[in-house]
């Protein structure tokens, strides 16, 4: 019974597997995740140890992506960088989703002055556009892996509150919620059985898209020197280091940039595809 | 004949399969005549209207012939068709709420229609619009010209659309459930208005509705559609006093009346257009159906002068 999928889930799944965005995006994301997980096994060199005599080598057979100023293998650092981005983006988005869904969902369901206060707080948080809130947090707590996660989570949180709240407000007005009250469902049961499951589709889509944005934000912070600190390999930080050798050794910033771009693209494709499947609009 | 539709078929490809929205419809319309087309959901009546207007989505496949003013519409270039639309043939849709552009005033809309099809000045356009708004009994036409759609009631919006579609004195006016979204009392007003306008203009009307009472009130002739086909066409008098197709008969028995009396449901439900029943599409719900009905598709044939029926079980 549990093993067999019901027809509508199966249909959604079939639609998802036929969707090109999901296939391409999913493949990229899977490759990125594997790269992050398997970094210790597939990276040819230690990403933190370099040989200064082999500094800034262009791509060659020994170092396919060349080496950086400290003579570290760029390929290995790109591979390990995936792990850093994976941790930062997924953990921060996960925290933001859980907190955002609860706060936004309850705020919408309870309504009244609580909703009013939550909305104001979210408005204030969203008044720090884009990377600015993360920058603000980074300025207070300082750089470092954990702090970047906190900063990025805090920057994602109000967005999920807003989306969940909007979605839940819409669902709350649906007749089936009233019908649930009519048969005597309790508030807790309405929230868990009716409101939450029907509000989640936009959250899933958005979580994917925010993962993409968070990878960019985290890399941006690191690029500014306010993010993940050396020696932990991180793509944004690698590019920042390479700016000094912009002209002489472009391979040092091109490869992490390509990795970053493709990874973000993968999540964005996946998000778009999920949007097509989960929030179908009328066909024109 | 103003309009002749012959063997019209319209189909769409969808995820579920090919939808045969209209499947072999033939009829013609005289000048100054009103044909009421009645059918339940999925009967293809609205698709029929859209195909005459050339407003079907690009994905639709159209076969057969539609001749209007002695010209073939199905093969006509879009630009030529566009010139006919709004000028020689017009359509009034069901939802007056969503049919009007929310960000433009009524005057802007009516002016644009006029200037699209006529050489003339803006003043001429607005004065004609004002004249027609008075003809459809809109109180304060000047104020309405400067109003946005959301500032008008449903009944007023529908009057505006009727004025817009009659303003250029077309030959054919299609009304696609124009009163279905309105209250009973407002529906009565609009139907009365249409009846009065009919005597003032030269146009022919195709009036599409799911409501048998409305069809009886406006139609000279009535066509009954079921699952993409026309099953019976006759004068209003004949169709309501002597219906011949089992579906028409069933429908008339199923509809409750204010004069009282029992209702008799038709068993089953309207078939899917993706995989419609073989033979006569009504046979699974038909009390008279036999083997032939499930195999052979009945043709719409004349059983009496002016009375056409598509049923194996009707003789004559």
């Amino acid at each position, binding site marked *: 019974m549990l093993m067999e999928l019901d027809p509508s889930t199966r249909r959604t799944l079939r639609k998802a597997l036929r969707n090109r965005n999901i296939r391409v995006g999913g493949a990229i994301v899977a490759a990125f995740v594997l790269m992050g997980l398997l970094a210790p096994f597939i990276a040819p060199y230690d990403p933190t140890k370099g040989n200064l005599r082999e500094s800034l080598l262009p791509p060659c057979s020994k170092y396919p992506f060349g080496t950086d100023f400290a003579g570290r293998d760029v390929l290995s650092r790109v591979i390990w960088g995936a792990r850093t981005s994976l941790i930062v983006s997924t953990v921060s988005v996960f925290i933001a989703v859980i907190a955002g869904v609860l706060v936004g969902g309850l705020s919408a369901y309870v309504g009244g002055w609580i909703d009013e206060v939550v909305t104001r707080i979210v408005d204030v948080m969203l008044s720090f*556009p884009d990377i600015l809130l993360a920058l603000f947090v980074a300025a207070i707590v300082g750089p470092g892996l954990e702090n970047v996660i906190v900063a990025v989570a805090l920057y994602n949180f109000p967005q999920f509150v807003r989306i969940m709240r909007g979605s839940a407000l819409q669902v709350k007005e649906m007749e089936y919620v009233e019908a649930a009250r009519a048969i005597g469902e309790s508030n807790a049961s309405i929230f868990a059985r009716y409101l939450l499951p029907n509000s989640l589709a936009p959250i899933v889509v958005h979580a994917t898209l925010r993962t993409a944005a968070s990878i960019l934000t985290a890399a941006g912070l690191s690029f500014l020197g306010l993010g993940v600190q050396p020696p932990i390999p991180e793509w944004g930080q690698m590019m920042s280091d390479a700016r000094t050798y912009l002209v002489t050794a472009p391979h040092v*910033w091109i490869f992490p940039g390509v990795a970053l771009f493709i990874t973000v693209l993968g999540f964005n494709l996946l998000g778009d595809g999920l949007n097509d499947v989960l929030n179908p609009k009328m066909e024109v | 004949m103003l309009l002749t539709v012959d063997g019209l078929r319209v189909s769409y490809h969808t995820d579920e399969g090919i939808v045969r929205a209209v499947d072999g419809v033939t009829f013609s319309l005289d000048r100054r005549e009103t044909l009421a087309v009645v059918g339940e959901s999925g009967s293809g009546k609205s698709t029929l209207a859209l195909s005459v207007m050339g407003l079907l989505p690009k994905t639709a496949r159209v076969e057969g012939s539609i001749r209007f003013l002695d010209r073939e519409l199905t093969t006509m270039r879009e630009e030529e068709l566009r010139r006919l639309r709004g000028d020689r043939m*017009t359509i009034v849709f069901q939802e007056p709420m969503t049919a009007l552009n929310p960000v433009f005033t009524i005057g802007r809309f009516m002016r644009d229609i006029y200037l699209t099809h006529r050489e003339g000045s803006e003043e001429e356009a607005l004065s004609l619009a004002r004249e027609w708004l008075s003809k459809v009994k809109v109180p304060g036409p000047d104020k309405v010209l400067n109003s946005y759609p959301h500032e008008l009631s449903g009944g007023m919006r529908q009057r505006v659309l009727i004025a817009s579609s009659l303003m250029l004195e077309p030959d054919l006016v299609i009304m696609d459930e124009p009163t279905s979204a309105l209250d009973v009392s407002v529906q009565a007003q609009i139907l009365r208005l249409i009846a009065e306008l009919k005597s003032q203009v030269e146009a022919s009307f195709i009036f599409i509705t799911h409501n048998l009472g409305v069809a009886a009130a406006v139609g000279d002739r009535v066509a009954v559609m079921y699952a993409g086909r026309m099953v019976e066409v006759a004068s209003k008098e004949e169709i309501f006093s002597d219906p011949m197709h089992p579906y028409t008969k069933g429908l008339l028995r199923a509809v409750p009346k204010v004069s009282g009396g029992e209702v008799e449901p038709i068993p089953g439900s309207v078939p899917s257009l993706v995989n419609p029943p073989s033979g006569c599409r009504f046979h699974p719900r038909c009390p008279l159906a036999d083997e032939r009905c499930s195999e052979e598709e009945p043709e719409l044939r004349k059983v009496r002068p002016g009375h056409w029926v598509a049923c194996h079980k009707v003789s004559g």
Partner: protein
Amino acid sequence: MSDLARYVIRRIILAIPTLLGVSVIVFLMIHMLPGDPAQLLAPPEATIQEVEMIRRRLGLDKPLWEQYLIFMGNALKGEFGKSLFTGHTVSELLWPAYLNTLTLSVLAMGFGLVIGVLMGIYAALRPNTVRDQAVTSLSLFGISMPVFWLGLILIEIFSVWLRLLPSGGSGTPRHLILPSLTLGLVGAAYVGRATRASMLEVLSQEYVRTARAYGLPERLVIYVYALRNALIPVVTVAGLIFGYMMAGAVLTETVFSFPGLGRLIVNAIFARDYPIVQAGILVVATTFVAINTAVDILYAFINPRIRLG
């Protein structure tokens, strides 16, 4: 009072609590930092007596709410105290940088809007065709592109290879081209996506079908009847993107060594020059709130229905 006037006033008044919230957060920054604010605001080599003097001079010994009122009073006058290290007042440093960033953002926004809206319409008019997919992919690339990486690539192409444009610095209009192009391309991608989605939605509306049913020429239907409606949500997106540009300029400015607000803030963070950080963030956030309020008001002018809300 007309509905429109009422709406405009309400929208402006609603921005006030948001701005107050922003100012409180920015004000509290000094107090959220680990350590003694007076110590943080004193030069590193200051003696205990000097720190105490600073504490009194800056009013850090007063109750928090009083400090906030003083902070706000000064902020409203455009005064944010002195930089801790350079000897300049914060205003002297802030406003030129702000102006630079504003110039950069406005240029980028103009560029992004024009390209984005055109791309969006082009794609929406031929949905699911190869050309639509090309445009859609391009905008997806745009939003997936790390802005600093794009900047580096443009430098590599236009400054290193072609030697057409300066790779950094400021002063001449030529210095603005690459940074605003970088920001503008990303902005165009977002605007393009929003326009396409909105245009597709509008094209499926009944009033578009009505316009066609009355034979209105396709050009009128699309560029007037549909576009006017389609741009309503795009205006909102544009407001958000402008904020993104103001803040996203941090990265672009760093890449191009452009003396804007973002770079000022980042450098101040490194130097622990907190008055500058506070002022910079407050100014960006205030601009963002102001723009979004303006957008909402603009909205009411485009869309007659919103005035009732």
